[in-house]
């Protein structure tokens, strides 16, 4: 026998909450902008800025003015090392040097220090040249083009381009849904495609790319000069005035930091000077993209031919603006880029719910696997 029929439900005292309009992924931190033409009636929210919904793994401070990578521990170490060494130098060595030799020493040291800090902050806090991800429409259009090219085999996800006579392969980025421009690369730590990607520098806490390479280079160059400067004058101080234990301890600390820094930083400056003069990125050099070992006719198509032009182009060329517009307001009509939840390291999309009319909704639901 079946169970007894349920009694009719009593009239509800309180109305039941309306069912959610659509399933929301569990790991979405922020509510999605509505795709319905009618505005949501949950109450007006203040307009949000684009950095708040940025799909990459970056951190933003000061309302989007400052951006860095997710892991910033080593950056703080860099700051501490520089501030500590310079602090000790200015406190313990400069008074003696200024009075016994010349006050130009702390003056020059001060200028170098300010320049080093300025370049460090500029390299760390600015957008390295991140390429915004494709809008759903663009991604769909590219998918159509790719699929129509191949039939039964998996479709080719590379395009070949002839740049100044050299064949260059453009790869398709599965995360950003774009064909990467030449020299761009996807940084797995920050989960962004970066233009003219050099490397991800943990000391600076950011990727080094097209927009901040010159700041990075000037930072390591001026830091080399500062380190050599401090090292030389601390040794001078010790020689001219063999001193008491406390100052001696500080001196030893400064000498040790400077000694190891000189080897690494001066070396790095030299390496990047070579890269700039041949117009290569660290990424290309490591992979040997333009090395003659790959083929007799292999050459760097981006080099301007002479060292001076290469250097000027890298250091004094026009500074392109940021493409990600992080402090812009999100307007309900604009399509948002393809995104994924922060924290996941893979980027597979199980469902592709693309809207053909892109007047409203932007965010795509993240895949759960």
């Amino acid at each position: 026998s079946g169970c007894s029929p349920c009694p009719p439900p009593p009239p509800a005292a309180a109305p039941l909450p309306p069912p959610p309009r659509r399933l929301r992924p569990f790991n979405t931190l922020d509510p999605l902008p509505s795709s319905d033409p009618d505005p949501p009636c949950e109450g007006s929210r203040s307009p949000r800025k684009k950095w708040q919904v940025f799909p990459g793994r970056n951190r933003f401070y000061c309302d989007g003015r400052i951006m860095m990578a997710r892991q910033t521990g080593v950056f703080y170490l860099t700051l501490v090392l520089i501030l500590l060494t310079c602090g000790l130098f200015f406190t313990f060595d400069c008074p003696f040097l200024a009075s016994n030799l010349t006050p130009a020493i702390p003056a020059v040291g001060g200028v170098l220090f300010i320049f080093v800090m300025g370049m460090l902050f500029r390299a760390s806090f600015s957008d390295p040249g991140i390429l915004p991800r494709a809008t759903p429409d663009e991604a769909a259009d590219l998918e159509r083009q790719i699929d129509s090219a191949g039939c039964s085999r998996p479709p080719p996800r590379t395009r070949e381009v002839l740049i100044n006579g050299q064949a260059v392969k453009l790869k398709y980025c599965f995360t950003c849904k774009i064909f990467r421009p030449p020299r761009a690369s996807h940084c797995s730590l920050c989960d962004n495609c970066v233009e003219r990607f050099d490397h991800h520098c943990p000391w600076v806490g950011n990727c080094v790319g097209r927009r901040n390479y010159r700041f990075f280079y000037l930072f390591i160059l001026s830091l080399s000069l500062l380190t050599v400067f401090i090292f030389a004058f601390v040794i001078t101080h010790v020689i001219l005035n063999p001193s008491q234990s406390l100052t001696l301890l500080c001196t030893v600390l400064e000498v040790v930091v400077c000694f190891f820094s000189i080897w690494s930083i001066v070396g790095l400056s030299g390496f990047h000077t070579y890269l700039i003069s041949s117009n290569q990125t660290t990424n290309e050099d490591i992979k040997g993209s333009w090395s003659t070992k790959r083929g007799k006719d292999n050459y760097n198509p981006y080099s301007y031919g002479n060292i001076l032009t290469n250097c000027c182009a890298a250091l004094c060329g026009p500074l392109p603006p940021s493409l990600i517009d992080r402090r812009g307001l999100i307007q309900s009509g604009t399509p948002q880029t393809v995104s994924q939840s922060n924290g996941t390291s893979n980027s597979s999309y199980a469902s592709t719910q693309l809207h053909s009319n892109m007047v409203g909704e932007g965010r795509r639901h993240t895949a759960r696997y």
Partner: protein
Amino acid sequence: MAETHSLQDMRQQAAITAKVFIQRDYSSGTMCQFQTKFPSELENRIDKQQFEETVRALNNMYAEAEKLGSQSYIEGCLACLTAYTVFLCMETHYEKVLKKIAKYIQEQNDKIYAPRGLLLTDPIERGLRVVEITIFEDRSLTR
């Protein structure tokens, strides 16, 4: 203005038939240039020559923005000497050209593309990846 009012109307009321994406042309390197190949979806909407002229004008302006010349070197050196604080009060050359491009696109939309039911989107809004052309339904056919 009457022209921009009709542009807004079109965006809000007309249905979007399709979107065409003009991809980047990397044959001269990493410089921002767009392909001038005429997409087949625009065949019955606009002149091939008109379209090519628009894209060529855009390409020339982007080339001007990224040009390495005495002006960019002076700006670069001045910026370095002032620890890049000069950009707090001055716009970079690139930004000035981008404003010019935005104005040009607005003008092209008003004069040429909107009357034909098309809309050009400024490439900077798409990260300089594509020139997005939105094709609206042809009202003249439905009348």
